[in-house]
């Protein structure tokens, strides 16, 4: 199983009476794009939160590159090469877009030197380059709290990519992005990630995006994985169509 990057085994987590994870077993393969679909409240975000150290499972464990990461802090997990983006973009509202990205780039090598701008000015160029690839150059100097939802979303993902992770977890990367721009955005994102050989897990509600970009799809339902496999196979499953896609289409 040398090609498994992240392995979750028997994850359980309950909030009050709600089982947000009720025995999750999932292996993420190196290099793949894995989509997570399922109705709201099925525990998709909870899985990302557990994988990045924000929540700790009641039972079960997660290993990354063979070593256990359950119980580690978000900070320690980032250092191992797992980054994430957020359903609600988590930007530094009073910084410009470029500053947001530049801070993420700089944080890779530790931020402790006040002399960084003089000694390693390269981090700003790298940030600009990233902005360029994400098509954000035009708004590089806008304050993050002045952006529209789609741009905020992209900047949020760009910050995660700036950390040069080997595994990227994205929580609804295309929600808030205008329908007309959606495919273009995902296209760009996929290219950036493939160039950098990043493995990606993304929660997605748009089945067209899933069908086109995911190598595999995991269907979440009430804290469990109801189905797992290639998109064509999973999405054509009548049960999945009834329980998940039906809901999605009407949502």
């Amino acid at each position, binding site marked *: 199983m040398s090609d498994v990057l992240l392995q979750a085994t028997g994850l359980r987590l309950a909030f009050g009476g709600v089982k947000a994870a009720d025995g999750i077993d999932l292996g993420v393969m190196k290099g793949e794009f894995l989509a997570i679909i399922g109705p709201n409240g099925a525990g998709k975000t909870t899985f990302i939160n557990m994988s990045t150290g924000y929540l700790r499972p009641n039972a079960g464990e997660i290993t990354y590159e063979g070593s256990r990461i359950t119980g580690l802090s978000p900070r320690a997990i980032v250092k191992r090469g797992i980054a994430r983006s957020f359903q609600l973009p*988590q930007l530094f509202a009073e910084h410009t877009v470029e500053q947001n990205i530049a801070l993420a780039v700089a944080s890779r090598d530790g931020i402790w030197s006040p002399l960084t701008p003089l000694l390693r000015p390269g981090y700003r160029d790298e940030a600009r380059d990233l902005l360029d690839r994400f098509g954000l150059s035009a708004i590089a100097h806008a304050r993050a709290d002045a952006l529209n939802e789609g741009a905020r979303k992209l900047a949020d993902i760009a910050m995660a990519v700036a950390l040069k992770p080997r595994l990227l977890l994205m929580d609804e990367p295309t929600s808030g992005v205008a329908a007309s721009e959606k495919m273009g955005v995902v296209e760009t994102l996929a290219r950036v990630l493939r160039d950098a050989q990043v493995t990606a897990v993304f929660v997605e509600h748009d089945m067209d995006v899933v069908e086109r970009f995911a190598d595999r799809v995991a269907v979440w339902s009430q804290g469990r994985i109801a189905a797992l496999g290639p998109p064509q196979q999973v999405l054509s499953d009548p049960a999945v169509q009834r329980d998940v896609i039906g809901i999605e289409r009407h949502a």
Partner: protein
Amino acid sequence: MAEWFQDNGLLLGLALLDGLSSAGLIFLVAVGLNLVFGVLRIINVAHGSLYAIGAYSAASIGIFLSGRGLPDWASIPTLILSAALVGAILGPIIERLLLRRIYAQEEVVQLLVTFALFMILEDVQKLLWGVQPIHHDTAMRWLGTIDVPFGADFIPFTNYQLFVLPGIAIVTLVGLAWFLRRTLTGRVIVAVTTDREAATAMGIDAAKVFLLTFTFGAMLAALGGALSSPTAALVPGIGAQTIVLSFAVVATAGLGQIEGAALTSLMMGLGRSIAVYFEPELEVVVPYIIMVLVLLVRPQGLFGVIETRRV
């Protein structure tokens, strides 16, 4: 231990009684500050000035009326009415003219506006009442003293400090809890405290709630001052001392918590008076030590609720 009690028992008894009465005063002031913070989200630095002005006004009104034949028994209601008057006049003025303009501003700006108000009121107070100590204790003298049995001995203590101060504090605590939980206006105030946006969206007139709450908080500060005036001479600086102590109570209790404020006031009142009798150097330090210890164990305060952020 037994021997220590033999020597210091009476002193301890006196410290406990003193602590109880000062806890009553601390509570009145701190709960007003806490209420205002809970609803307006503003830490009112000038709350201590309202306390001082309440104290000076009550003493002046008392002296004025006593000179015109006010019977001694009426001096206690006079204290309370003076406080209500001070709060009813200054509260709306401050809220309408000043605070209203800064609700949307950053926390530091709000804090500084009330700090500026504090600076202004400190001088107003000095200009009106001078710097000489003022003392008017008819209320306390009229009620006389009582011998409180303590072990085999008796401790003489004023009825005013033993019954009136803790009594009014308890009535305030119970009344406030009843008001906030059982009356419509009270529930509206609580609704604004817990979720301002939702409350406003439901059609609650936040401006009115703010005005009402601030005025009531100002009355409580003035009441604390007025009730303290018979027990000690009034000098400049009492407002500054009172506000820092109230800050400590509010942070220790947890923000917006009434019962927490009561318990914390009791701890700090007792802690401080025990220090006064046994280790006077520590008097001023004790409240902060209590605060630091509590926050070490419960970072959100005794009764505070942790706010979690969704990601």
